[in-house]
């Protein structure tokens, strides 16, 4: 098996306080790994730490941007063999705040991506069939968007931006400690469009303490009035260790009433639909064509996550997945999270040290597919479910089927286009239902 032949077995470093111990390494490229067709890059800089955020990011210190870019370029070069020359289908640069990276560093990064990987441009004459244009997304903070930056990104092949608006209400933005002027959102979307970035998306958050259902509907209306093809609407999650969670437990505010939160879910479903968008995942909506057919506005990169495809990961705290050639399981890993560790030693080459690593495990892979599949509109193929369960745990397929039947009697799961998918009611219980499937598999 591939993970027995380690490419670069990393030295065991001392596990001092707050430091991860790492000893695992990525499997060697080739062998029984399928070529990776997606790439995630993590840019760990922010202006300021938002109170709900549990991403790894540090408040920008300009002095480390150069060192980071140098190290990242080296890492990308080491990851390149995993794509085996195949063109990338998707690239996603997230953060942190990628738009905070200085323009000249962006230019270097984009050049190096072109050197190391095959990226298919929108205007590539051969961009058809198995060689679709690479979906290349960059997350932006509306505050930091300039025409110069957008044009640079565009020239480097970026064709999609995801704009973190969160809310258009200054009061609610303040509660989240998210510092931007909401009026910058339409401006930023306009700049991106003007620079030729074809695909645009906006992120919103609901369930903010103090937010009313009307406030939320106003946010939705403002976002959907923009020239965008995609919307993400997240209910606020109190992640452990974030300032929001600490404030909640201090009693600074109360958790949103569940009933109101459910209404907010319903509001985004119906408003998005009226605006010509359809929910394709718990929190994601994409423009659809006539008769409800996809026009490819879904985020293919995220779909790669949810379909357990292979993707590479670069930058501190980034997570990757490499599927074995037979497609039954994959290696999962997470890079070392702290920027300092990532940059050290100064002359580091090759892939990043890992903080976490899980070898391929077919049983785990089935659970992951169920878990993410339930969240997707496309749902789960019952034929696959039967075979996969039987393969990893003989005798379990029948129990899993019975469990699905029960959920369907409860009105939570439905069979559509020969696939199991959660109903509108069921989608609100996706986690609990995944646990029920896990139980049935055991």
């Amino acid at each position, binding site marked *: 098996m591939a993970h027995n032949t380690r490419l670069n077995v990393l030295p065991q470093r001392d596990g001092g306080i707050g430091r991860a111990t790492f000893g695992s390494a990525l499997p060697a490229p080739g062998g029984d790994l399928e070529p990776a067709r997606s790439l995630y890059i993590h840019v760990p800089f922010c202006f300021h730490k938002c109170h709900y955020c549990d991403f790894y990011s540090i408040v920008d210190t300009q002095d480390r941007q150069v060192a980071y870019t140098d190290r990242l370029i080296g890492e990308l070069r080491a990851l390149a063999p995993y794509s085996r020359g195949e063109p990338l289908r998707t690239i996603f640069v997230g953060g942190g705040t990628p738009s905070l990276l200085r323009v000249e560093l962006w230019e270097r990064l984009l050049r190096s991506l072109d050197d190391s990987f095959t990226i298919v441009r929108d205007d590539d004459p051969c961009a058809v069939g198995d060689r679709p244009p690479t979906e290349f997304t960059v997350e932006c903070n509306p505050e930091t968007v300039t025409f110069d930056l957008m044009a640079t990104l565009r020239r480097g092949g970026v064709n999609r931006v995801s704009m973190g608006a969160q809310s258009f209400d200054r009061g609610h933005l303040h509660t989240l400690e998210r510092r931007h002027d909401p009026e910058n959102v339409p401006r930023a979307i306009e700049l991106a469009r003007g620079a030729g970035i074809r695909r645009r998306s906006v992120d919103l958050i609901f369930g903010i303490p103090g937010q009313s259902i009307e406030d939320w509907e106003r946010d939705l209306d403002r976002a959907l009035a923009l020239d965008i093809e995609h919307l993400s609407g997240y209910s606020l999650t109190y992640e452990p260790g974030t300032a929001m969670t600490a404030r909640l437990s201090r009693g600074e505010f109360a958790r949103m009433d569940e*009933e109101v939160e459910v209404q907010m879910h319903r509001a985004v479903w119906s408003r998005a639909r009226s605006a010509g968008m359809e929910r394709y995942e*718990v*929190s994601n909506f994409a423009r659809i064509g006539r008769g409800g057919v996809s026009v490819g506005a879904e985020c293919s990169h995220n779909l790669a*996550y949810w379909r357990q495809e292979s993707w590479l990961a670069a930058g501190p705290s980034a997570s990757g997945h490499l599927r074995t050639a037979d497609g039954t399981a994959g290696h*999962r890993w997470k890079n070392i999270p702290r920027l300092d560790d990532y940059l050290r030693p100064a002359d580091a080459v090759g892939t990043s040290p890992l903080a*976490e690593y899980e070898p391929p495990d077919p049983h785990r892979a089935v*659970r992951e597919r169920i*878990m993410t599949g339930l969240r997707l509109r496309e749902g789960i193929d019952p034929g696959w479910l039967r075979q996969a369960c039987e393969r990893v745990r003989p005798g379990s397929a029948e129990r899993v089927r019975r469990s699905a039947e029960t959920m369907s009697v409860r009105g939570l799961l439905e069979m559509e286009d020969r696939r199991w998918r959660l109903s509108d009611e069921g989608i609100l*219980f996706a986690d*609990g239902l995944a646990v029920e499937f896990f139980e049935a598999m055991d």
Partner: protein
Amino acid sequence: MPELPPKPSSAPRIRNFSIIAHIDHGKSTLADRLLQATNAVSAREAKEQILDSMDIERERGITIKASAVTVYHRHKPGAGADDLETDFESPAEDASPASHQVRKGDSPESHGDLYMLNFIDTPGHVDFNYEVSRALKACEGAILVVDATQGVQAQTLVNAYLAVNENLTIIPVINKIDLPSARTLEVAEEVEQTLGFAAEDCLLVSAKTGVGIPELLAAICERFPGPREPVTDKLRALIFDAVYDDYRGVIVYVRVFDGRLRVGDKIRMIGTERTFQVTEIGKMTPKPYRLPNGEIGPGETAYVVAAIRSLRDVRIGDTVTLENAPAAEALPGYQPPRQMVFCDFYPATTEDGDGADFEQLRDAVEKLSLNDSSFTFQPVHSEALGFGFRCGFLGLLHMDIVQERLEREGGVQIVQTAPTVSYHVLVRGTDTVTGANGQALKSVDHSSPFYRDVPAGSQLLEVHNPADLPNMGHVIEIREPICKVEIMLPKEYIGDVMKLCLDRRGLYKNQNYVSTSREIITFEVPLAEIIYDFFDKMKGMTSGYGTMDYEVIEYRADNLVKMDTLINGEPVEALALIVHRDKAEFRGRNLLVRLKEQIPRHQFEIPLQSALGGKVIARETIKAYRKDVLAKCYGGDVSRKRKLLEKQKEGKKRMKNVGSVTIPQEAFMAVLDQGD
């Protein structure tokens, strides 16, 4: 195998004693010092509380089982302080009889006459009090240890009285005098005030630093009497303990009072009338040491191996005699330990109903009962929880320990129901009455001190499971165990603690002075009230300074009723309770509030009700949850989220289904918390 010092031609003098005290006052640490001072263990071998050999004892830092050991020591008659063997002998462990002669100084004989000290370290916790009673019957003396910072406490008194009742000589020892907070003199006065020993007779010791140990050893030899003279030449040896060993079967600890016992003898237990062949006789030094001559005589204690298969084949307290020259009369024995607290154990997982988990639990229970004969068990079946065992324990700590050992040593996961006491139910008619399981309910043993006032045409049944209560139409009365509770506490807390006792249906008995700052109060309180967090409440309201002892003194009738708990309309017997009518509503409401906190929300609303004979007296509702989905699941979230859901799945394994409601194990303990 360690060696004992060579036996001198003249037999050593013998001293048999126990170390007794309130919990944590330093008995086991003092035992360490005695072992070390007499060279029974070398400094290298010495570890803290060496006699606490069970894992669970070491982890919890308490003694659960008494341990008997034998050491040798030299003492000059009249000396106030002795030389320690450490100073003139090599450690016992690395000495052959010859090398043992290698002295550090002058000849061993110049340090005095040889004494054989047989001593027993006992547990301090109330639940294991019967271990103390047993130990004392094998001794002529007792070292009563009192912590110099804590003073006389509830178990100090109880254990001292036990020793006095056995006519033992007591040496009061004030321990931990090295601590800066030691109130040595005050505590000596307390000893005088409460127990009547002259304050100046107390020895001052630090079991930590070893201060006072030479004086203590001298006092042991001087003050404790030797064993009483034999009254017959027929063998009479008291079985004061027994443990089970995987390889050798049951190992019996005996104290010989009369006659001699040798390897090869055919012995007979006077009580059980069973006979066995002795294959080995030895002493714990503290390692087992097989006596080369295989013989012991009057006054000695030893362990005996005799191919005894199961602990059930011996009765602790029985007398051993010889098959072919039997003694006429047994030595006075013991009351068997009485199980006071009962609860059910069920396997936490019941997969596919194939019963494999129950079989595993059965194995674990049977195996543990080989090591601990003081808990009882009998199979039960419950609608909600499946097959399990109803077990009886000496107290709450004992229950806790048994559960932990079953889980750890038996590898089973357990769901435990709330503990109850054993009720005596007086019913009309003498026909067999069956309980919830269809098994006949046991009658109270006629020889029990609590069997009384049973009119003709009625019977007294033992019920320790509320589900087993016979039809109330036939019940004349329900009697419950009443305890005499003694609480020793600083004066300023007396008001609060009295109120607690009265709230728990307590009857005030009296109040006594211990010292200028502390008193001891006595109440009679139903045991059922004590097992509901009484101890924790009392500790809490006395800032940890109060200590208590309790003992069941009688059974008394009261207005007791069965209270049912319904979840989603279904009665759950594992949550049924026997309560005092006046407290039913209050208890019901509290129970439901606790349940509401414990039972996770479901996708539907769950009504919770308390009912007396079909009449609902309290009600709560668990609201349905409206959503259970996390907003985000991107690349890095997949593993984390999957692990989270897997954990929830594992958690659900430890839950039980009642109809369509999933109930976590903790909910079955909700009944415990009074919430007042």
